[in-house]
C-alpha cells in the first residue's frame, strides 16, 4: 500500500481485521534504513566538499603530475578488490538461495578476504601519500580525501567485523540465507559508495563548479 493510500485511510470507520500482520523481513528493512542513514551522511560530506571547493584556496587532487591522486593505479587496484568482494558475496548469495552451502561458504570467505585486501590497499595508499609528504592538512581537498576514504574504510571494517564473527561460527548465522543476502546488499552498497566517492574525489574543478552552480552554491 502506498504512503498516500495509508494516509487517506479513515480509521474511525469499521474495517475487517486482515489475517496478516505487518511483519516482513525486519533485518532487510533495518539494513535499508541504515544504508539510507549512511547515504545521507556521505551526501552531507559531499555538499560540504562542494561548498568548500568554491573557495579560492582549493587545489584539485588529480589534475597534473605531482598532485597526490594523479597516479590512480593503486586506487584502481583497490577498486578491483572491492568489486571482486562484491561479486563473491553475490555468488555466495545465489548459492545460499539454492541451499548450496559449501559454495556459499567459499563465496563468503573470498568476499571477506577481498574486502580486507581493499582496506589493506587503502591503508598502503595512505602510507604512500604520507611518505611523499602529502599530509592531511596540506590542502582542503586532501583533508577531504583522508576523511572520506577513512570513513568509508570504517564502514568496510564494521562489515568485516560482522563477517568475521559469522565466519567464526558465532551465532551460527552463516546458515541463514537471509544473513548472506544482507551481507551481499551491504557490500554492493559499499562498492557503489566507493565508486561515487572515487569519482568525486578525482573530478575536475570544472565539475565541482558545475554541480555547485546547479545547486546554487557557486
Amino acid at each position: 500500500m502506498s504512503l498516500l493510500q495509508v494516509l487517506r485511510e479513515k480509521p474511525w470507520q469499521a474495517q475487517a481485521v486482515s489475517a496478516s500482520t505487518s511483519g516482513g523481513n525486519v533485518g532487510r528493512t533495518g539494513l535499508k534504513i541504515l544504508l539510507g542513514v549512511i547515504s545521507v551522511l556521505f551526501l552531507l560530506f559531499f555538499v560540504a566538499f562542494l561548498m568548500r571547493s568554491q573557495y579560492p584556496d582549493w587545489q584539485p587532487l588529480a589534475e597534473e603530475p605531482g598532485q597526490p591522486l594523479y597516479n590512480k593505479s593503486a586506487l584502481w587496484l583497490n577498486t578491483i578488490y572491492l568489486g571482486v568482494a562484491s561479486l563473491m558475496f553475490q555468488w555466495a548469495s545465489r548459492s545460499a538461495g539454492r541451499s548450496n552451502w559449501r559454495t556459499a561458504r567459499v563465496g563468503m570467505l573470498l568476499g571477506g578476504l577481498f574486502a580486507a585486501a581493499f582496506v589493506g590497499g587503502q591503508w598502503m595508499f595512505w602510507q604512500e601519500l604520507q611518505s611523499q609528504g602529502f599530509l592531511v592538512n596540506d590542502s582542503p581537498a586532501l583533508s577531504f580525501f583522508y576523511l572520506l576514504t577513512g570513513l568509508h574504510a570504517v564502514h568496510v571494517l564494521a562489515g568485516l567485523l560482522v563477517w568475521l564473527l559469522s565466519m567464526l561460527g558465532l551465532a551460527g548465522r552463516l546458515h541463514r540465507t537471509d544473513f548472506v543476502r544482507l551481507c551481499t546488499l551491504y557490500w554492493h552498497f559499499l562498492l557503489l559508495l566507493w565508486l561515487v566517492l572515487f569519482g568525486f574525489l578525482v573530478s575536475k574543478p570544472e565539475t565541482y563548479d558545475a554541480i555547485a552552480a546547479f545547486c546554487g552554491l557557486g
Partner: protein
Amino acid sequence: MNEHDQHQPGSFFTRYIWSQDHKVIAIQYSITAIFVGLIALGLSALMRLQLGFPGTFDFIDASSYYQYVTMHGMIMVIYLLTALFLGGFGNYLIPLMVGARDMVFPYVNMLSYWVYLLAVIVLLASFFVPGGPTGAGWTLYPPQAILQGTPGADWGIVLMLISLAIFIVAATMGGLNYVTTVLQARARGMTMMRMPLTVWGIFMATILALLAFPALFVSAIMMLFDKLAGTSFFMPAILSMGQPLDHEGGSPILFQHLFWFFGHPEVYIVALPAFGIVSDLISTHARKNIFGYRMMVWAIVIIGVLSFVVWAHHMYVSGMNPYFGYFFATTTLIIAVPTAIKVYNWVLTLWRGNIHLTLPMLFALAFVATFTVGGLTGLFLGNVVVDLPLSDTYFVVAHFHMVMGVSPILVIFGGIYHWYPKITGRMLNERLGQWHFWGTFLGTYAIYFPMHYLGVLGVPRRYYAFENYDFIPESAQALNVFITVAAILVALIQLLFIFNLVWSLFRGREAGSNPWQATTLEWQTETTPPGHGNWGRELPVCYRWAYDYSVPGYEQDFLPQNMPGTHSAGEPAGVRV
C-alpha cells in the same frame, strides 16, 4: 520454546542491567536523561545567580559562566530532551502501543543505551579535565570554539565533539529499532492509521533524527579534524593571541549551515513526540476522540518534511545571501500552518469534552498555552526584518525556552504522570503533583515572560555582565533579580517531583491495570507493570482506532483497541475530517 518464553530473562543482570527488554532500557534511558537534566538545571541556576546578583559569587567568573551556558544548552537539547523522548518514551511506548513483544532488534536496542551512557560519561568527564568543559556556546561555532581564549579550547571542545559523535551512533541504533518496529512489528489489525498519535509523533521524530543527526556528525568530525589535525574545513586564516595560525581559507558559514541543518529538525525531533503525546493525553482525559485524526497525522508528516527547509532562519545575521533570508522566512512561516492546525485540533478536542483536570491533563493544557505563546513569538523571529533587531537578545532566549524548553518539558511531566501507573503499578501522589504543576507552570511564566521585555529593550544574551551599557535601564536589573528568584524556586520545585517519583514507587496508591480508562493497547496488558514479552501467550489483535471514547450506545465511555466487534450504535460521535 515458544515466542513468549524467548522473552523471559535469566539472571538479575540480564533482567535489570544488560537487559534487552525495551521497558527496562526505557527506564535506563529515562533515569540517565533526568540525571543529566538535573545537572543542566543546576547550571542554569548558577547562570541566573550571576545575572541576578552580579559579582556576588566569586566562583562564577566569565569563563565558568560561558561553560554553564554551553553545557546547559547542549545537555538540555540533546542529552535530556532527545534521549528522553526517543530513548525513554519511544522505547517504552512503541512496542506496547503497536502490540509487539519488544523492539525488533533488542540487542541493538540494549547497545544503544550503553553507547548513550558512554556519550554522557565522556560529556561529563569534560568537567574534570584541564580547562574544564567548552564554553563555546551550544552552537559550537568556529573559529572561536577551538581557539585559545574560549574556555575549554584544549580538552573541553574535543570531549564535547567526541561525545556528540558517540551520541549520534547511539541515537542511530535506537532509531533503526523504532522505525523498523513501527513499520514491521505491529499487531494484527494495527494499521498505520490506527496507531495512537504518540507513536506517529515518535515515529516521525525518529525519521528526522536519522536524517538530521548525520549533519551534526559531519560538522563534529570536520571540526575535530580542524582542531586535532590542523585542517582548514571551517577555519579561515586567523590571528590568535597575536600569532598567525596555520589555518587558511576555511568557511565558518559552512559549519553554520551544517549545524542548523541538524539544529532545526532537532527542534521538531523534540516537538513531534510532544505533539503526539499531548494529543493522547487530551483525548484520554477529555473522554473524547481526537479532533481531525487524519489531519493530525498529515500535520506531523508535513512538519517533518518542512523542518528540513527552514534551517537558515537561524542565520539571518550571519552575512549569507539576503535572498536566502527571503526563502527561509517564507518556509518558516509556512510551517506555522500545520502547527497551528494541531493547536486548533487540540482545542476542538477539548470543546464539549468531558474534561477531567487530572495531572496529565493539567500539563497538557499548560503545554497548549505555552506552545502557543512560544509559537507566536516565533512568527516575529521568522521574519528577517523583525529578527535583525531582536537577534541575540533575551527575546530569542524567551522564545526558544517557551517553545522548545518549557513546552516539551511540560509534556514530559504530563507523560510521566500519565504512564507512571503502567510503569510501576502505582499512582504518583496527586497533592505533590499539584504543587509541582502549579509551581512549574506559573514559575516558568515568571521566568520567561519578563525576558521578552528585556529582549525588546535590547538586552543582549550570552553576556556575563551588563555593566556600563547606557542603553540598558537600571530597571532591567530589577527584572533580572525577579527572574533569578523565580528560576531558583522553579528549580527547587522539581525536587518535589523527584521525591514524588521515588516515594510513590513504594507508597503510591495501587493503580490497577487501566486507571485512566484509556483505549490504547499499553493499558490492556495481562499484568501491570507488563512482564517481559508484554502480552503473555497471545499477542493482542487490534479491532479499532485509538480514540473510541464516549461512543454512543455503550455503557463504558471507552472501547479498548483490542475489544472485538464493530460499533453497534454507529460510528463514534464527533466531527470527522
